[in-house]
């Protein structure tokens, strides 16, 4: 039986360098990190500090040069591309800054996308889609296309898409970066709700200190190392 103190994310001695022209840039040189289950962590830091790269590693969409990445007991750094795709489909939900919805699909169809990778039938998929859209308060927008919705509504659809397959981990890359303050607060409240009431572990990269206030913890990434600040939930 798991508890909130069980580690959800464990990173040990992570190393990554990029080559840009003739220059080799070191992003991480022995990074360590542990995030327990049901935590809500905001990652902040200056541009180029590796926040997005870290999120890529946690989501299994980029490879590190060395080190281990363990998520919910699975060493994802050892998985093949095919295994990673399968793992992402059932364990991780992604929320991007620019929503990344399919413009030719309705809100319901966008949310249904991750379920096409499951064995669920049409009726079960519909039920799950409706439930996910209800969580984000968009039950009345099922048949609307992205272009017919505001930025905040599109981001809610993206959140519904991220949670529809009930993953343990949500990775958010500047989820409010394209929204006004009031809408941003609504989105962040939804994330907080998902963390508090549904037990989702959330890692959110942000430049916005106000957004970071919604997290339980804020990690500052600086020169390849974390500086942690505890916040009141």
């Amino acid at each position, binding site marked *: 039986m798991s508890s909130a103190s069980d580690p959800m994310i464990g990173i040990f001695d992570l190393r990554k360098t990029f080559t840009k022209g003739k220059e080799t840039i070191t992003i991480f040189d022995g990074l360590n990190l542990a995030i327990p289950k049901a935590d809500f962590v905001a990652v902040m830091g200056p541009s180029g500090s590796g926040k997005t790269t870290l999120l890529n590693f946690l989501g299994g*969409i980029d490879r590190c040069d060395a080190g281990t990445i363990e998520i919910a007991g699975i060493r994802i750094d050892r998985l093949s591309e095919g295994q990673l*795709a399968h793992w*992402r489909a059932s364990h991780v939900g992604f929320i991007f800054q620019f929503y*990344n919805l*399919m413009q030719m*699909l309705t809100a319901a169809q966008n949310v249904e996308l991750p379920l*096409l*990778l499951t064995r669920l039938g049409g009726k079960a998929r519909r039920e799950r889609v409706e439930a996910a859209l209800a969580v984000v308060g968009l039950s009345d927008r099922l048949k609307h296309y992205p272009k017919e919705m505001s930025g905040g509504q599109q981001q809610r659809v993206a959140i519904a*898409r991220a949670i529809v397959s009930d993953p343990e981990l949500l990775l958010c890359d500047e989820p409010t970066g394209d929204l006004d303050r009031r809408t941003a607060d609504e989105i962040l409240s939804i994330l907080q709700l998902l963390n508090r009431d549904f037990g989702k572990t959330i890692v959110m990269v942000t430049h916005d200190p106000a957004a970071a206030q919604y997290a339980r913890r804020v990690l500052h990434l600086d020169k390849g190392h974390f500086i942690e600040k505890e916040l009141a939930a």
Partner: protein
Amino acid sequence: MNDLSMIRKNLFRRRLRAILMIVSILIAFAIYGVLASFERAFNAGQERATPDRLVVLNKINLSQPLPISYYSRVGAVDGVAQLSPISWLGGYYREPKNFISAFAVYPEDWMKLRDSDFVFSQDARTAFVRERTGALVGARMMEKWGWKVGDRIPISSSIYAQKSGARAWDFTIVGSFTPRIPQADTNIMLVGYDYFNETRSFGKDLINWLMLRTTSAAVNERVGNTIDGMFANSPYETTTDSEKAFQKSFAAQLGNVALIVELVVGAAFVTILMIVGNTMVMSVRERTREIGVLKTLGFPGGRILRMVLGESILLALIGGLPGLGVAMLLITQVRGSLMNFVPTLTLYPDIAVGAIGLMILLGIITGLLPALGAMRLTIVTALGRN
């Protein structure tokens, strides 16, 4: 929603572009269907040619005659099982525009020769042999002119006249025949050579060619050489060819249809291939970010490859199948007026099946590169997440 509905939505995300591509593919396959059908119809004679049938012609060319006396001399050659003289009437019905494919033959001999192509009733056989002024008419020609057995029909010739000066011969239709094989054309009329020969004003005792059947295809070469050797250095030297070669040279008079078909279809296909291929590449490139998102959600590369390929194949089918329909419509429209020249003109099932195969191939060729690109695309590159 399923993969197919995703493919369909992707295909029509830019409606005008999709419609233009569909129309261009439609035109290409309409051209293919029509030209391939014409090519097949022109060569139908070659397809029905049997390997043991030979044709003896004047060595100069088809328009030069041979004497009827060759009939008995050729018939005596070892290896010749059956033969008939054939004379071309150049016939028409009432008006010169009503062209009729009519031949004067030895009735019994000709029917035995063509038994493998046509079905003759016993009544028709007996009557055609018995009646000097009788005509045996194919089922399609009967249907075309609304004739029936017993009708007396005036057939004029654009080449010959009667000794009496009359241009028309009155023939009585004594029977009809149907095809035994699909390629056999029944839009033809046969009359007795003896009656025609006796009544025409010139060209007496001459024929256009002899058709014969050998005892076996294995003796064809020997029989041909013997016949041509027999008449060498005579006023009427001969050349003996297989029926297939004869039909081919006959079709060649209408131009090298096969070459035209290949060039036109080839040019159309290459053009469309480039247009559709280029558009597919552009279309997939526009979706780089979406492909990245799909991969992030867990869609494996192989599934994305199948979706892109499925899109290009669907595009080819949506354009190509109506194209075949248009071809069928065009062929149906022109078949009546071209019946005398290409009597077996139709969109053959194997041409349609081949065209569907080509559509799928077109889809694969145009979609393969963008599909492979989409499959190999990394998420980091697709989403610009460096």
